[in-house]
């Protein structure tokens, strides 16, 4: 039975996002990439356009929607050509779910509403210099002291960490292993909290990535999400959504690179004809288009299953790996078709090439995805 994933309301929303990209992002994106930051006002503009808080309840200023609304958003916002901007603007999508799922009513009102109004920036703080996907090994410690937790430790690779108003932070309140981990919402104005460094990266330049330091940082106990020891569950619960989002970013980035390559191949001439006049180029473009189409369809399928409430740990891990590998290959070929010009900043594919590389690392590397799949499949 044939079924379209995107209905009319998805298409309307898609148009809204496209207009936002054309009007608010594209005119300045080169400048923001060079400056390695985008203006904080963009959050409010996105909120005004109805693009913040997707898939969160209206009660907190969110926009209830299905997975395909989110997919449509990601596909369209990626068309700005800067995946860094996409991740910076969307850092709430990883920082806020634990608050929604584990927080009290008061916490949800306090933390979520201003973020979805574009007034505050949220970040998720899990990774540490010595603990990435090995979440159970995190060392940042929170010790209860009266009405407060005293937090000491460090976090790294924190998207939006340089200017986040609060960080949903994984801390160790108990013993070793995953059972000792809790989630604390830490306000960036808390004494003892500091941005140790803004991390410069190969790509995703428009998003800020931070190394954070916590030194005797006193955090009110009322900022604990759920109970002590529930952090690991809260972290894991959203990984599937994050991985789907990364997979969609990958196919969207690849599609953009493909479009740029088609345009270039049809206009650039060598040996008396356009590049697309060469069989090797045409076949390369066909391979790229085939890969993008398959990745995209599989991502949609996984989104549909997730929408239906089916557990897809295996499928979403496979989707992320497949789409990211496709993206790496497609952006590589896109640069190849552009030749020496693809190596210069004057062509979009140069950035897409750099931006793409983190997709198969962030949110769990390809290798971690394979470990997950092999466990689910009991290999």
């Amino acid at each position, binding site marked *: 039975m044939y079924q379209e994933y995107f209905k009319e309301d998805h298409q309307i929303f898609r148009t809204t996002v496209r207009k936002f990209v054309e009007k608010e992002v594209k005119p300045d994106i080169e400048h923001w990439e060079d400056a390695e930051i985008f203006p904080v006002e963009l959050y409010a503009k996105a909120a005004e356009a109805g693009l913040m808080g997707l898939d969160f309840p209206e009660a907190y200023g969110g926009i209830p929607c299905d997975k395909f609304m989110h997919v449509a958003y990601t596909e369209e916002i990626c068309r700005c050509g800067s995946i860094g901007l996409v991740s910076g603007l969307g850092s709430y999508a990883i920082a806020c779910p634990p608050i929604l799922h584990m927080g009290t009513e008061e916490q949800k009102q306090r933390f979520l509403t201003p973020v979805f109004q574009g007034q505050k920036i949220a970040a998720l703080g899990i990774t540490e210099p010595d603990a990435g996907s090995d979440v159970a090994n995190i060392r940042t410690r929170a010790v209860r002291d009266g009405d407060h937790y005293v937090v000491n430790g460090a976090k790294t690779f924190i998207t939006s960490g340089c200017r986040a108003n609060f960080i949903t932070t994984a801390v160790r309140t108990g013993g070793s292993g995953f059972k000792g981990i809790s989630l604390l919402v830490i306000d960036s104005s808390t004494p003892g909290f500091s941005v140790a460094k803004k991390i410069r990266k190969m790509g995703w330049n428009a998003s800020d990535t931070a190394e954070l330091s916590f030194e005797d940082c006193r955090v009110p106990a009322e900022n604990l999400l759920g109970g002590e020891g529930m952090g690991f569950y809260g972290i894991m619960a959203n990984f599937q959504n994050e991985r789907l989002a990364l997979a969609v970013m990958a196919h969207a980035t690849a599609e953009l690179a493909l479009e740029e390559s088609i345009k270039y191949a049809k206009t650039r001439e060598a040996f008396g004809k356009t590049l697309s006049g060469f069989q090797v180029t045409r076949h390369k473009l066909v391979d790229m288009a085939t890969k993008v189409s398959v990745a995209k369809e599989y991502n949609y399928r996984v989104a549909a299953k997730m929408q239906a409430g089916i557990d897809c740990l295996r499928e979403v891990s496979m989707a992320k790996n497949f789409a990211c590998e496709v993206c790496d290959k497609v952006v590589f070929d896109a640069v190849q078709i552009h030749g020496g010009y693809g190596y210069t900043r004057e062509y979009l594919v140069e950035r897409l090439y750099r931006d793409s590389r983190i997709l198969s*690392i962030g949110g769990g590397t390809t290798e971690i995805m394979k470990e997950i799949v092999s466990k689910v499949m009991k290999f």
Partner: protein
Amino acid sequence: MIDYELTREQKDLQGRMTAFCSAEIAPAAAELDAAATDKVPELLRAQFKKLGGAGYFDLLLNADFVSQCVAGEEVAKAGPGAFLAAMSSGTAFGMALSCFGSQAQKSRYLPGIASGDKIGALAGTEAEAGSDLSGLSTKAERKGDQWILTGSKDLVTNAPVADVFLVLAWTDREAGLEKGLSLFVVEKGAAGLAVGPTVETMGLRGAPTAGITLTGCAVPADALVGEAGGGYALLGRITEWIKISLSAMSVGLGVACMEVSTGHGKGKKAFGKPIGLFEGVGAKLAVMFTLNDLGRMMTLRAAWSTDHQETEAPILTASAKLFTSESVNKIADLAMQVHGGHGYIKGSAVERLYRDARFAELAYGTSEMQRAFIARDSLNRYKPA
């Protein structure tokens, strides 16, 4: 009998270059990559003086290609940007002059190139002419005892720092590629020569790149290199040398990727053990080594066959360039993957190496051009029995 052993001299050279590069080239590599484009020239000149002092340019001008590859791998491993800039000056410009130039041209330019005091560049590519030279538009017209050059060149490595350029131009368009192109030496100060803004590139930022324009640029009659109309054949030879050099560069980059990856594999722990002990990571290290060692063998074979003027030299050179450039991209990708997020940040060596590696498959004939050349050669070579 096949003897893979390097000569005593080549082994000594290798040892000397390893020591020199780790002391003088490697420490500057990260800064050359990260520096603002207007700071690169000064840093690069300092590197050129050191390379000159170590006899590296002498080697590029005079030594056999096997020795050049042995030394070049060390330079590229330590500082890929400096390697490309040195190759563009010492090989693309310097060796061209040393093989095809007049005695006067050699005495005027080569001492400076050899010492590293002067920097040369090759200006062949144009916006509408990369591998397809028939798209060139720059022309040289004879007027009295001068040549007047008009046109523009694009993506000229070293242009922002070059003291002297080797420029490809039409002297007789009607005569076609094989008889109508010529090479000219054009000094930086020549009236009518302008160097454009530095082009921001993905990698190899230590070798700055820009376009140049020639507006009625007058050079003396003796600026012509070789004979008028002989440019195509000369450029073909020069490109062969560059392709061998770039193969050595890819191998050097590959070694650098392996060094940082094995270091990270031993030092970084996850799930209770060094990640290098995970089979998945170990398998990556094994692929990296195998690809790189095979690439080195192909490179040295291409170099040796060029030294011995074997008829197979061009095809071996094209396949070495194709294989090493594709391999180093695979190797750099695996290196990045071994590093995880730590490899994506600025300041990590692998982040730089990954960007640098991408150049190899694009420059001096994309992989597609190498394949087309190999295919043509193969079709001519193998005939039905």
